[in-house]
């Protein structure tokens, strides 16, 4: 009797194991799949006079080969790799914009200086003057176009951020749904392996978009948190990531996490800088750091160039006999009041010394008794009891009455590249002389000499451009290196995960043979039991 049941249990166990093996073979290329194995335990023995008699084998559970620590490593390295790859990818077009080739800003500046040098030798020659105007126009247009392309990159990044946020929200919803299903299935007592694999894979996809951390609950659901704290998924409830506007600088974005809908909703705002990992972080870092730096560097070059040349040009006399003609016009520096300000203060900025300009935005805070001006690039603070204040080549003034706690953001050179334009197009208006005499080239020589002067931070304009080019190159190169390092770490983690959870077809082939034999053997046991029973029955005949 017991022989039959033992054989049957062996058959069932072998069949379960074969099932698990065939499932593994079928899912060899399924991403996120952890190989499953039937866990066999021996049935407790039956007490009899002659000892405990075994009662066969039972399938305790189907277990997936899964290592929490390895999984955690994959999640983390995935988020780091995605962030680095995204930021590095976004940086490449910026790198190209500042290349030293014939189409670049450096070359356009060189050609402008060159045309001035040539025109200075023959100030009455209209063709040389026309060449100066034309090369100046080309320089201005290179500045404008580069600024335009940076803006375009910004807009595209904004679109990508929105798409990433939508993706995050979709994935969060899925995690919530799976959490629900898993907690229901937990009541059954057996692990829902496929659901668990699916959820882990979705979490990994989530880490590709934004770095998250997880916390397992007692009901089997996984709470998901953004790296800086706010919860994205709690149980089966998923929150939404939204993109909002920074009240202190209307062009900047902030990330918000909203739970619930309509009147019952609550929202948490997080700074872009507090996120860690994932494409979203890479995009936001690019947008808030790299792109702003690039625009500021470009704007600083344009503003300093226009300011310096104007101050020399305006000293000279043009062919109409007039003095004070400007060569370039600039967009005025921008200042924003924080939309939460309670006072009526309004801040304005003017460029006074082109050579002292920095490639940075500024923040002005008023605490009731004094103003604190912070250079955002390196955090240097300057305090003053009153405005106007002159700092870094800028004069900062206040009109109206600010309240204590009000703050303002200054973007002094951000729009320099977009806003530079020609103040003259007629070659006759070039002020080459210090008198109206046709052959007077003294101011033209002064203009040509600007190219050799330490006109920006102690460097000539061409050296300053070289410095910007090197900075961008170093940043891009650094990001590429970070990306390849992060990528290697991810590959390592995936290798470890594959080692634990991956299906090896040869191994499964061997298991097929093994469990097939076991199945056949158990079948033989059953047929032996049947023969024995038949023998018993035959005894009575």
């Amino acid at each position, binding site marked *: 009797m017991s022989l039959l049941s033992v054989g049957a249990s062996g058959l069932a166990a072998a069949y379960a194991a074969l099932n698990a093996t065939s499932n593994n073979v079928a899912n060899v290329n399924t991403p996120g799949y952890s190989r499953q194995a039937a866990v066999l335990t021996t049935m407790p023995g039956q007490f009899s006079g002659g000892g405990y008699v075994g009662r066969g084998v039972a399938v305790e559970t189907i277990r997936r080969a899964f290592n929490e620590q390895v999984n955690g490593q994959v999640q983390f390295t995935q988020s780091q790799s995605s962030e680095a790859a995204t930021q590095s990818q976004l940086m490449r077009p910026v790198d190209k914009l500042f290349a030293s080739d014939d189409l670049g800003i450096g070359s356009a500046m060189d050609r402008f200086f060159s045309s001035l040098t040539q025109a200075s030798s023959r100030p009455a020659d209209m063709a040389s003057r026309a060449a100066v105007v034309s090369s100046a126009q080309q320089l201005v247009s290179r500045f404008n176009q580069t600024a335009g392309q940076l803006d375009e990159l910004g807009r595209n990044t904004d679109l990508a951020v929105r798409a990433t946020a939508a993706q995050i929200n979709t994935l969060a919803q899925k995690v919530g749904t799976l959490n629900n299903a898993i907690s229901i299935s937990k009541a059954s007592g057996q692990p829902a392996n496929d659901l668990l694999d699916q959820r882990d894979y979705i979490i990994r996809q989530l880490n590709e978009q934004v770095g998250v951390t997880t916390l397992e609950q007692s009901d089997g659901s996984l709470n998901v948190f953004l790296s800086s704290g706010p919860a994205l998924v709690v149980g089966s409830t998923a929150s939404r990531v939204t993109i909002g506007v920074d009240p202190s600088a209307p062009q900047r974005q902030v990330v918000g996490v909203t739970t619930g809908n309509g009147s019952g909703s609550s929202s948490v705002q997080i700074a872009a800088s507090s996120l860690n990992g994932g494409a979203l972080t890479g995009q936001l870092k690019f947008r808030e750091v790299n792109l702003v730096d690039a625009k500021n560097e470009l704007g600083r070059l344009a503003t300093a160039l226009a300011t310096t040349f104007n101050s020399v040009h305006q000293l000279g006399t043009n062919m109409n006999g007039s003095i004070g003609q400007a060569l370039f016009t600039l967009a005025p520096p921008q200042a924003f009041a924080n939309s939460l300000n309670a006072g009526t203060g309004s801040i304005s900025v003017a460029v006074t010394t082109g050579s002292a300009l920095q490639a940075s935005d500024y923040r002005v805070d008023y605490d009731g008794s004094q103003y604190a001006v912070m250079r955002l690039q390196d955090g240097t603070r300057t305090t003053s009891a009153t405005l106007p204040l002159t700092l870094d080549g800028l004069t900062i003034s206040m009109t109206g009455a600010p309240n204590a706690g009000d703050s303002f953001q200054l973007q002094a050179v951000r729009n320099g590249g977009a806003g530079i334009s020609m103040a003259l197009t007629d070659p006759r208006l070039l002020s080459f002389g210090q008198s109206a005499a046709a052959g007077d080239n003294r101011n033209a020589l002064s203009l040509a000499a600007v190219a*050799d002067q330490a006109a920006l931070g102690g460097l000539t304009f061409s050296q300053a451009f070289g410095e910007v*080019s090197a900075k961008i190159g170093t940043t891009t190169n650094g990001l590429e290196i970070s990306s390849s390092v992060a990528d290697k770490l991810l590959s390592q983690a995936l290798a470890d995960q594959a080692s634990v959870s991956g299906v090896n077809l040869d191994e499964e082939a061997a298991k097929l043979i093994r469990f097939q034999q076991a199945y056949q053997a158990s079948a033989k046991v059953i047929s032996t039991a049947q023969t024995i029973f038949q023998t018993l029955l035959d005894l009575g005949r």
Partner: protein
Amino acid sequence: MRIGTAFAHASSSALLTAAQSRLLATQAELSSGKRVTTPSDDPVNASQIATTRSSLTMQTSFAANQSFLNGELRQLESTVGSVGDVLAAARETLVAAGNGAYSDADRRSLAVALTSQRAQLVALGNSRSADGQYLFSGFQSGLAPFYQSGSAIAYAGDNGTRGVLVGPGLAIQSNSDGQGLFMSVAKGNGTFATAASATNLGSGKIDSGIVVNPAVLTGNGYAIRFTSSVTLDIVNTNTNTVLSSQPYVPGQAISVDGMRVEVSGTPINGDQFVITQGQTSSVFDALDQAIAALNMSTFTDVDRARISDGLRQAASTLEQGFNLVLAKRAEIGGRMNALDQAANVSLDREFENTSTLSRLQDVDYAEAASRFSAQQTGLQAALAAYAQTSKMSLFDYIR
């Protein structure tokens, strides 16, 4: 360590892709010839690449300026040379006119010759460069410098010097000052000038004089006044004091305050000869003076004395003018030397910059070609290995 089948395939294909992209990158380098196309390719040298390119661009504009200046200076030098030739010819005419055997008609024909030489000088003074700008007008290069104003030639330009940039911070003057060359020529022998007073009624003549002791020169004006036909006073016209009185001996030297002059002929009581210092005249005025003298009719010795004095003064001025021309030619020659030097320095700098840029930016073909070959071999080996290992499976052996 266990190898997951899916992971093994993914990892191998990732390595293959990486090898391929490295090979493609090397291929791109070989075909473009450039190792560095964006700043991130070589951030350490990005700055130097930008500044070297800058220098090379500036170099082309300096080269253009050097060539332009070369043309200007050559023309200037040749024009000034021609001015010197005309001045020398005019002086010869004046010397010839001193021949006492010439009749009034002969002298008048010489006056005609001088008139045409005066016109030549005006034309040379109003020379224009290839640009159409006047060479001798200073900054007023759109205006002809010399024009007829009444009976004399006036100067319409200024004394501005126009520098041409032939190297970084190095400017060489391209124009010349018409005022100094034509209009402000020193009168006399280079230190002082002598003249017979226009009211003289005698036939006395004074020579141009020489300096015997430069240390005692005062710079004052003097007059030799004849108190009778045989006595004279030497007067300092600045202080209005009579310095000495002495008898007159024709041809004898008269010395005063480091200067020595000779009076000859027969002056009479009341005749006066003046010595002046620091006066200037234009070459045109000098020629006008000579032409006026030659056009005079000679009836008496007094007339002859007047003509002779006028011619002598004009000849001295033209001599000084000629000296100025020589000095100017030397100065222009100095400028041309400086230009040559600047051009040589430019060439050297250009060569250096070109080599530096090439070293920084261009691909080293030997290194890149061997790298390409190595990467190609590596890729071939990786492909072959993958093909072999992906064929092996236990399922092939299970019956």
